[in-house]
């Protein structure tokens, strides 16, 4: 199995969730994060003092899927989250050695 981690723009969350559901993703973990990246660094003024905004609000998705599905999931997120503007986000894939559904005790593929 694979763990797909994606950092996207917050307002894209709902759209991405729908797209993923439509391709059969049945679960994910969503976290509110602050992102640092090329988008960062634009300056704002607060009470007359200019400062660089290094962290921008992002949403992080963590989705565990079967290895076979990983690419499709990545692709789906990529296409849905894309606005062609800087800060669209990144997607990373990691290996997962095991999974378990607490309620049923099902493991691995059956658990996700």
């Amino acid at each position, binding site marked *: 199995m694979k763990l797909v981690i994606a950092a996207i723009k917050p307002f894209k969350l709902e759209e991405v969730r729908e797209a993923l559901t439509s391709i059969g993703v049945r679960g994910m973990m969503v976290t509110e994060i602050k992102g640092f990246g090329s988008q960062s660094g634009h300056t*704002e*003024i*607060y*009470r*007359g*003092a200019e*400062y660089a905004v290094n962290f921008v609000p992002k949403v992080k998705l963590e989705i565990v899927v079967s290895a076979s599905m990983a690419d499709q999931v990545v692709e789906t997120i990529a296409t849905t989250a894309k606005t062609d503007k800087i800060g669209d986000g990144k997607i990373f894939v990691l290996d997962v050695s095991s999974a378990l559904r607490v309620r049923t005790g099902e493991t691995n593929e059956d658990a996700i």
Partner: protein
Amino acid sequence: MKLTKLIPVVGLAVALPTLALAQDDAPATVAADEFVWIMNSLLFLIGGFLVFFMAAGFAMLEGGLVRSKNVTMQMTKNVALFSLAAIFYWLIGYNLMYPLGDWAIEGYFSALFPAVGVLEPVGVALADADDSSYASTGSDYIFQLMFCAATASIVSGALAERIKLWPFLIFVCILTGFIYPLTASWQWGGGWLSEAGFSDFAGSTVVHACGAAAALAGAIILGPRLGKYKDGVVHPMPGSNLALATLGMFILWLGWFGFNGGSQLAMGSVGDIADVSRIFSNTNMAAASGAVAALILTQIMYGKVDLTMVLNGALAGLVSITAEPLAPTLFGALWIGAIGGVIVVFTVPFLDKIKIDDVVGAIPVHGFAGVWGTIAVIFYGDASIGTQLLGIVAIVGTTFVLSLIVWIILKGVMGIRVSEEAELEGLDTTELGMEAYPDFSKG
């Protein structure tokens, strides 16, 4: 009728004798002197609860402008400072501020120091009242107390996020028990400044600039928050809750109707109530124009409106009109308040430039705008620029020096600043062991 609480029976009894004064053939009428006294007292009571609520306004404004890791501490300071002010103003301040012509040093230092405040007896008759042509002592006391507490609130905002709780509270006791009452006695106690012709209707200088001077002295001794001016650049530390800060500003605006309106000190005549009405209108206009000035100016200067400046702008407008809310026309109130708003927009960054860290902009709002308002009296009221400057220098200077001494002593004796680690982690967990917003989930 409703047989209600037993007190009124007593109450009404008290009322009767006075009515007896009228001739028998005519229906009992109301004696004018009693009417005036009653209405004046009522004005102070209404003004009193309105100005009291400003304590909540300061708390919310400051709670919204500090970072969430310091909110519990800011709340604690605000509740404690008001409570201590109430005690020390009674214990010392009130009589120090109002010598009633009885001076230890003529015009400079009350002979009634130290002595606790005493109210008129229950059910007092006009003949026995402390001042039969003014108002009840209790109403005057509660009203004046609120002004005293305001000076301490001003200080708490400026020194937020780094000062230790107890040294701050000790300073509050000295400021509200001694420093403010002393300087205020020179003007409102009938002292040398009032003799000199200084004019400050509701206290742009006597109250606001005084508080700002105490805050400035503290800010200098205390130093800026860690990292605020790292490598010579200003590092903003955005307030954690602008909705709360906005609420605080609105509450302060509300309280100001009592602050300025009550300072007419009388509403028992057509002329007085009409004047209070003028004051309400001018006060409101100055706040509005101060806010609009900051609104437009930040849009022009920064390309974006800065809400925190707009909030400060409204307050600066209020402080500016406080020295003379009666005489100006509405147009006068508009431009005087607007200049107040402009002043904060420029002085907030100015303080940062000279590395004085004022967390909520208390010094620009109450200090710079207060001085401006006091000078502006010359345009509508009858005051000379000379005496106005004299009053400003006398009160701001004295307060600043005395405060500086106290701060230095406190620093030497017990230290006034929390540890570096405590400041970085936040005062709530380190000093009080209690987060203001402890939940995982929002709130």
